[in-house]
């Protein structure tokens, strides 16, 4: 197995500790950082997404795979920046105001990062103004999560805030979370909805036209 294939497999298996020395070795052997990113990490996360959709992987497996991917990305990032490799788009992601649940949101963030997006993770309990600021700071996608019907209305409030600030048309709005549906997305004027982390990646790519 080539070193790149080993990196890819270690990410799929969620072996963060194993993946780091392999990435260092690949770099030492002269492999370009963007090649490791594309063929090692992004391709691995694509496979992880596929396995999740097939029902072979569940949330824990996705989480540890994403963790391994992030460990590798940490090494590559400064090199990618130096090399002038650009991300396919900046995503501002957060759980809406009043909602403290972050597993789903973090998983979507990691899957998007694994697909080559740049992530601005705003955390949980995110006020609408913070999403507005993020768009002003170049976010092309606003991704909102809510686990409760109690907090779900804040998705609508955030979209209204984006409109009021005059930045709604500068960003694509995606929403998700247990009580959220496509009907609700349509009702509040979000651009996209997805039911899980893996399809969120496809949706983001589709909406940005980079699929």
């Amino acid at each position, binding site marked *: 197995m080539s070193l790149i294939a080993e990196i890819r497999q270690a990410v799929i298996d969620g072996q963060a500790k194993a993946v780091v020395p392999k990435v260092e070795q690949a770099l030492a052997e002269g492999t370009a950082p963007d090649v490791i990113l594309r063929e090692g990490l992004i391709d691995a996360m694509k496979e992880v997404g596929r396995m999740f959709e097939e029902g072979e992987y569940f949330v824990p497996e996705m989480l540890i795979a994403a963790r391994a991917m992030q460990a590798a990305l940490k090494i590559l990032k400064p090199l990618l920046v130096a090399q002038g490799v650009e991300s396919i788009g900046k995503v501002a992601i957060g759980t809406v105001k009043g909602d*403290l649940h972050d597993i789903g949101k973090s998983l979507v963030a990691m899957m998007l990062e694994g697909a080559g997006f740049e992530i601005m993770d705003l955390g949980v309990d995110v006020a609408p103004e913070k999403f507005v600021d993020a768009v002003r700071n170049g976010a092309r996608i606003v991704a909102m999560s809510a686990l409760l019907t109690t907090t779900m209305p804040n998705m609508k409030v955030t979209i209204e805030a984006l409109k009021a600030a005059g930045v709604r048309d500068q960003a694509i709005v995606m929403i998700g979370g247990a*009580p959220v549906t496509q009907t609700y997305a349509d009702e509040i004027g979000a651009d996209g909805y997805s039911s899980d982390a893996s399809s969120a990646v496809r949706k983001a790519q589709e909406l940005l036209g980079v699929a």
Partner: protein
Amino acid sequence: MIRYTALTCEALARPVYAIAATVEPVISVRLYRQGLHNTPKKLHRTLQDEVDAVQPGEAKAILMVYGLCGNSTVGLVARHTPLVIPRAHDCITLYLGSRQRYQTEFEAHPGTYWYSLDFLERLEPGSNVALGATDLGALDEVYEEYIEKYGQDNADYLMEVMGEWGKHYERAAYIDMGTGDGRPYEQVARDQAERRNWLFEKKQGDRRLLEMLLKGDWPEDEFLIVPPGHTIINTGDEMLLRAQLVEE
């Protein structure tokens, strides 16, 4: 004589019986297992089957002693008899007497675990003691499994990530509805608070909203009346619900 059929979550059994015994309309109380909100589709099916089972003329209205409950009530269809449902997210609103009060509580402490006598006394073994929440204790049990499956390092990471939201919880609130001896259950809530290092608060429940529902006092800003042939929609705004004609 006015007759209503009240489809009631067990978590509200005592106050609903207490009120039903004193109001003018004759209320047929039907209880359903609590905790069904964890499987919203199942709860939805149960409720629709029960709505469908009510015969024409049997009741003037079918009262839903539920809220959105994880969207379980969304999409319920009124057949020949209107449905009446409080504009509530869940039973906490029904315990506290108004959604404004719940909203105030929620804004002050979003990370609250709620406890009540009815809920705790009907708890099935192995389920979570707080209303409508995921059990943090369950995480301890999967830890061993994670170590075996993913190794120590990853198991520690998973515990950290999956327990993270629990760290945002900061308050245990016991709601006293004034029916039955709640002391042992209040103690359960106190013990949980102590164990997790949360603030403990005892809240006086308010039967107001339940009384209005069972009496037939349904102002539009607090209740949705779903006419025959209409279904319940989640509006995702402060009114929570609206009725929509079912397209044939």
